[in-house]
């Protein structure tokens, strides 16, 4: 059995992941990544040791009889994830910070530091699976359709896959909670985390105001227009809008209106009908492939947002950018979100929607 570093967020999934690895006879080391500080105390902010997730993870690790450490990744996380999150909104796009974290921060850091601690393998509580085949190791969707998190993991460095373990990917959420209760883990009935971890209030605009400063074009009033240019209203800052959004557009329309586009240059938010929201093609950038890249003409499935179904698409040009022609037009194709390509349950790779 090997020495495994398991990333424990303090939630039930990673708690059970750690427990399953202990059961399997591995030497397990638990770590929690401290990604940011809730404290508003300026300057000497290094001292916040009281994040709930860290405390929960410590209790679970102690129940399991494994060591537990805290990795302080605040500096990298701020640079790679939070700064990108803010910059994307300031450009009128809608970022996926969890993707960014998994691709750039979390797994790379876990692997590097795991190696320093003599760990052969890295584990997390994500609902995905890895399959070791003759053609190498590939990433598969988790068995629980409702919980599958492969959408967030397309950006992993492919060479890492053979080192990764995802013990709960083979289980359903119900089974995970049952396991946690059976093991009397304190996190068994902890509610799902819904929010972005560094936006605990759920209102990301507070964070934007804090980090962009009070005067920034993304937070200044602008007009709401139809695609033909007709002005239909005003808004308080385009950073508050995302493609497909219905709320915050004011009333008085004959049919439901949705955000079609955010134009940072003119501070305009473009709105239109449900039909206008549909797009037949998508361009994807910052590509990462976990298998051999697809080639022009391949039929694949693409998932354009978390919890959306993967829909048929045909690969157009592939290079630094990827062009996909969608089998059926899809609503609210959102710049900044991930487009993840699948072959059945297998993750081929993905990128950011241009």
């Amino acid at each position: 059995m090997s020495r495994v570093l398991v990333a424990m967020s303090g939630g039930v999934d990673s708690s059970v992941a750690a427990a399953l690895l202990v059961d399997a006879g591995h030497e397990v080391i638990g770590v929690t990544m401290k990604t940011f500080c809730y404290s508003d105390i300026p300057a000497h902010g290094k001292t916040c040791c009281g994040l709930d997730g860290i405390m929960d993870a410590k209790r679970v690790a102690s129940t399991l009889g494994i060591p537990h450490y805290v990795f302080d990744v605040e500096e990298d996380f701020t640079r790679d994830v939070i700064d990108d999150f803010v910059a994307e909104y300031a450009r009128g796009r809608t970022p996926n910070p969890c993707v960014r974290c998994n691709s750039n921060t979390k797994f790379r850091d876990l692997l590097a530091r795991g190696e320093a601690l003599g760990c052969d393998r890295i584990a997390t509580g994500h609902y995905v699976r890895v399959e070791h085949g003759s053609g190498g190791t590939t990433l598969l969707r988790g068995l629980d359709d409702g919980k599958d998190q492969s959408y967030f993991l397309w950006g992993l460095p492919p060479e890492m896959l053979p080192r990764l373990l995802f013990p709960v990917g083979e289980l359903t959420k119900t089974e995970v909670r049952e396991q946690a209760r059976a093991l009397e883990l304190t996190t068994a009935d902890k509610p799902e985390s819904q929010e972005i971890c560094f936006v605990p209030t759920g209102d990301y605009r507070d964070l934007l105001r804090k980090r962009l400063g009070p005067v920034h074009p993304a937070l200044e009033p602008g007009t709401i227009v139809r695609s033909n240019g007709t002005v239909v209203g005003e808004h308080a800052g385009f950073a508050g809008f995302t493609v497909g959004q219905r709320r915050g557009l004011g009333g008085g329309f004959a049919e439901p209106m949705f955000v079609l586009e955010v134009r940072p240059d003119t501070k305009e938010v473009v709105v239109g009908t449900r039909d206008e929201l549909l797009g037949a093609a998508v361009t994807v950038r910052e590509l990462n492939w976990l298998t051999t890249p697809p080639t022009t003409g391949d039929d694949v499935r693409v998932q354009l947002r978390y919890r959306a179904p993967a829909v048929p698409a045909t690969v157009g040009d592939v290079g630094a950018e990827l062009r996909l022609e969608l089998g059926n037009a899809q609503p609210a194709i959102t710049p900044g979100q991930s487009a993840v390509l699948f072959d059945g349950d297998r993750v081929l790779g993905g990128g950011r929607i241009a």
Partner: protein
Amino acid sequence: MSSVYLDHAATTPVRDDVIAAMEPYLTARFGNPSSAHRWGQEASAALEHARARLASAIGARPSEIRFVRGGTESDNLAIIGGVRALAREGATPVLLASAIEHSAVLEPAGWLEGRGETELRLIPVSPDGNLGLDRVSDQLDARPSLASVMWANNETGLLLPMDEVVSWARTSCTVVHTDASQGVGKVPIDVGEVEVDLLTATGHKLGGPRGCGVLFVRDGIEIEPLIFGGGQERALRPGTEDVAGAVGLAEAIHLAVRDLEASGPRMAALRDRLQGRLLDAIPGLRLNCGDAPRAPHVLSLGLPGIRNGADFLMALDLEGVAASGGSACHTGAAAASHVISALYGSDDPFATVRLSVGRASTEDEVDRGAEVVAEVWNRMKSP
């Protein structure tokens, strides 16, 4: 694999004789010292005996001893209460603190400064223990001032020149506070010889219970309280007294000071043995403050070629050796501490590991510790 605890500067076990001294005051003699009846009298007598015992261990008068709840509280009381008492004179007091003070001093100092209650000046310190007092002395004699300089630095063991601080302070009538949490029981301290005005000590660094501390307040020195209630501890620290804690604290300090003549050289010999083995095993090793006078129990290493000191400590722990990076108070922090930055610059390329011995440490333990530190260093050093 045998495990080795080399982090006694973080905390150290309570001595059996201290537990024995405390036990009656947790059980049979449970009285409240403020009560007039004989239960109260018994508790009150124990408290005053403890006060006298503690006072005599550091050369103070019993009336100068205030029992508080730990070292951090004692530091906060000295800094905030000291500055506020000086402010009664009208002018904004100047607060001078060495750049390597514990956060229990620097945080309240920064907080006061942020509120406009003081002008904070940081006293630079060099790795050989020199204080840049002349660089912070500008126009000091015209203003009320408080200086806080620790007796022994918690991260490096560096002993600061308290004699020099006290004589310098006389010229400007500066009130002198010293955080002696890592000094009492480790080096001789007598407030009759080195005439500081305020002194902080804590129990759990020398075999006493946690959550028990003391502030020595020289007769005639004024301190504003931070909390209010009954009049306990001369109204400086109201609240029903922790008699057992005070008894334990006084006993621990008494024993540590009594044994110092033997235990000081013994700890220093263990520290030197550890240091010698590591110098042999790790080329390019820097001993932090290695050329300065140091408290006998702390060895601070500047490890070459280690990118992340936090990872190094985890690796040590997995091999069964307990150490810390500088201070034990910053969970998982990867960056260099403010102490190392102040001494060696913020871009110091060395990773800090603090090893510290206690009264029960053995040669076998430090040998094993040295072996593991060297092993892990060899494994983790960048090529």
